């Protein structure tokens, strides 16, 4: 059995771990609030954008439709965009996204498709590198600061360039959707060709300059926005997940400290009792 001193050292080490997890939890909670606000503030734009495009798309069809909307007519080559965070210590947040990414890639490969992967976030790179490193086209970092347009734009541009250059036919974005503080769901979203919800009854609009010109500007912008939304929701989800994970870790450390303290007290008491018996029996022998 470990000596009292060894146990005291062990307790001190668990205590300092607990301090760290506690601090991380509080930092995550503070950052979560800001990330959540940013994600929410960006939502109206994304929603209106989707509504306008759905409306426009129902009016433009056939050969007039821009390439980004209509697709290339083939679905042989796929680009899978995987977005995670750069850092860990967030429970199952990153592995959830990576698992979905792996499943998606596997099922595409089984269907005999050609798959390329575009990575956003260091964790996705680290976890997918072993299996699919030869399929990576580009690796971006998720960044430590909260995501903004300047971060989303180059990623979106790269995706569009790849598509326009004929390198890929279908683009799918895999990231974590922020449902609430307790649930974040890894989700796959088809970016190109744009999956359009049925607009229902299309309102009749006049267009200035004209439908196709507007769509040609709106669609790339929409991809940027989708990427931005994914990054923002990832950011919020990451902090929510980290907060929960660190809260659990803090509680576990607390339980461990209690158990160790009791064990230490018992050992110490046993030692005292033994010493007493020795003294008493020594005294009575005289």
């Amino acid at each position, binding site marked *: 059995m470990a000596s009292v001193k060894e146990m005291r050292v062990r307790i001190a080490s668990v205590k300092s771990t607990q301090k760290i997890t506690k601090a991380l939890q509080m930092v995550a909670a503070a950052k979560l609030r800001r990330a959540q606000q*940013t994600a929410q*503030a*960006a939502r*109206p*734009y*994304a929603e*209106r*954008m989707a509504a*306008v495009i759905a*409306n*426009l798309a129902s009016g433009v069809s056939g050969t007039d439709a821009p390439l980004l909307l209509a697709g290339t007519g083939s679905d042989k080559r796929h680009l899978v965009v995987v977005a995670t965070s750069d850092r860990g210590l967030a429970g199952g947040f990153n592995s959830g996204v990576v698992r979905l990414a792996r499943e998606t890639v596997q099922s595409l490969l089984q269907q005999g498709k050609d798959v390329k992967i575009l990575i956003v976030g260091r964790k996705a790179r680290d976890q997918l590198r072993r299996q699919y490193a030869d399929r990576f086209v580009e690796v971006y970092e998720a960044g430590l600061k909260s995501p*903004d*347009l300047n971060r989303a734009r180059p990623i979106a541009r790269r995706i569009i360039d790849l598509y326009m250059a004929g390198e890929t036919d279908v683009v799918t974005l895999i990231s974590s959707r922020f449902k609430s503080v307790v649930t974040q769901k890894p989700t796959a979203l088809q970016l190109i060709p744009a999956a359009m919800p049925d607009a229902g009854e299309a*309102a*009749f*609009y*006049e*267009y*200035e*300059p004209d439908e196709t*010109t*507007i769509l040609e*500007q*709106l669609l790339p*912008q929409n991809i*940027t*926005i989708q990427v*931005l939304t994914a990054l923002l929701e990832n950011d919020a989800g990451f902090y929510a997940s980290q907060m929960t994970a660190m809260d659990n870790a803090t509680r576990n450390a607390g339980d461990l400290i209690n158990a160790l303290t009791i064990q230490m007290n018992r050992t110490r008491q046993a030692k005292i009792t033994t010493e007493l018996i020795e003294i008493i029996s020594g005294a009575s022998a005289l």
Partner: protein
Amino acid sequence: MADKIAFDLVSPERLLISDHADMVTIPATEGYMGVMAGHAPVVTALRPGMIDVLNNGTDTRFFIRGGFAEISAAKINVLADEAIPMSEMDLAVLDQRIRDAEEEVLAATTDADKTRKNEILDDLKLVRAAF
């Protein structure tokens, strides 16, 4: 009292204003456009410029760096690439936008792209001159 038109101005970062107005002036591609309640439904691209929101005799101004507007009889939605309230605007911000636009012109690879970027730059310079 004349009918008012609902007006929403959103940028990717945030919702700037959601209110009613007597008239909203927007920098459409073919020139400035004053929109009042009962307007015919239009979707238009926007150039860089100023948005004026006239309501009860007060005028609220915003700078936008291009975007889109969706107009129906009762509502106008402006989706700006970037929007800054006039109260937070100053020449330094505008000059930075102009420098960015100049870089984008230089970075443009196709002619069509270059023309478009140049138009943006010209519009920004117009806003700068009127500031």
